[in-house]
């Protein structure tokens, strides 16, 4: 799926830092026209996102999260062994339990991008612990 800015007649580009999926498997993706700067958001319901997920791909492009072995199983299985979950790349930031739970609710195929958005935000601000408040700020910042 591609998006065209009609006034400029140019392709709109996906904003990898602008994605903040809703927690109930809804997806929100931001696209921006490079020429005029106009932004739009593509919003999908959970049934639509489920079909995308069957391909085993990540929206916004593959990340280390989706390339890791057993990525989908480890991130989606409700009660997987800890060593299986350790396949996700580690970062130095501390995630509170509540923040971990919130990021876990993001569908796996956009989780990498969502996590990266939160991490980038935290690093820009010099934040070392990611909690629910930080995640709310990210959501506010990206406007979704």
């Amino acid at each position, binding site marked *: 799926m591609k998006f065209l800015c009609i006034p400029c007649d140019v392709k709109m580009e996906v904003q*990898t830092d602008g994605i903040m999926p809703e927690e109930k498997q809804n997806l929100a993706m931001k696209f921006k026209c490079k020429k005029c700067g106009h932004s739009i958001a593509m919003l999908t319901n959970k049934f639509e996102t489920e079909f995308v997920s069957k391909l085993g791909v990540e929206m916004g492009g593959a990340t280390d999260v989706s390339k890791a072995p057993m990525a*989908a199983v480890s991130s989606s*299985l409700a009660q997987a062994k800890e060593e299986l979950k350790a396949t996700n790349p580690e970062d130095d930031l501390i995630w509170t339990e509540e923040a971990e739970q919130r990021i876990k609710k993001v569908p796996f195929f956009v989780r990498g991008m969502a996590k990266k958005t939160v991490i980038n935000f935290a690093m820009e601000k010099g934040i070392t612990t990611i909690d629910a408040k930080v995640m709310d700020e990210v959501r506010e910042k990206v406007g979704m």
Partner: protein
Amino acid sequence: MKTYEDLEGDGGSNIIGQVVELGEKLRTRLDKIKYKVALMSGKGGVGKSSITANIASCLADRGNKVGILDADLNGPSIGHLLGVGNDAQLDMKDDGLEPGIGHQGIRIMSMDMLLKTAETPIMWTDADDATASWVSVMESTAIRELLADTNWGELDYLLIDMPPGSDRIDNIRSLIPELAGVVEITIPSPLSQHIVTKSITKNNKMGVPIIGLIENMATYVCPHCDKEGKLFDGEDVHKLSERKDVPYIGKIPFDTRVSRSQSGNLFYKEFKDSVTGQAIAEAVDNIEKFTTK
């Protein structure tokens, strides 16, 4: 106004590139495996997993390198049968998860190995409103990952222990187009034969090669005197095989000692000279003949 073709690339996610990459990863893994064989039944409870484990045992006994993918995600039993408990430590490498090593060096991958405890069911979300379509999507994705992300290494045979029913074969067929074939398993009961007929019909329609039909629990063998007795009343399974034009490749009697495989060696390894052991070997002869022809 520009059209879809005028705009280069896709929406920005490189979906096609990602799908190609996933396909290549799977292909690299499968290319190291000579023969992939799925074992199916229509009905549950016909001893499919037990037959799969013992066919693997016989193949391994003949010098083949064998692996088993437990595709029965919600009723996994291969780990239990092969002696790889749920408490086995997972060995995750950068390029994949190491398979469990069961009796006779048989490599296995099963959802049971990935769950926190032996009593943990498979749930694809903590949320209480998981939709049926989400569960179905995740099961297909899980099968792909279990196949592609397990370090199977070089294998002669990868046996796929399918769940009851015939729905998962669509999934397996699309992931493994070079599937050598399927083995259909039934017991003599009319109900089991009725259901396995549907599975045979579906595979014929899909063009999936059928190696043959195994009649499990065909008789009961007394462990003391080796005398055989009837276990089920039903139509002769030979007739079904003739009607559906599927080779009848094995008549396997029930032997109470099969249950020993749950705690010790696999039945075939220990009792290969028994009536049931020889019947398993005969079925394996037919499978090898079919796959290596």
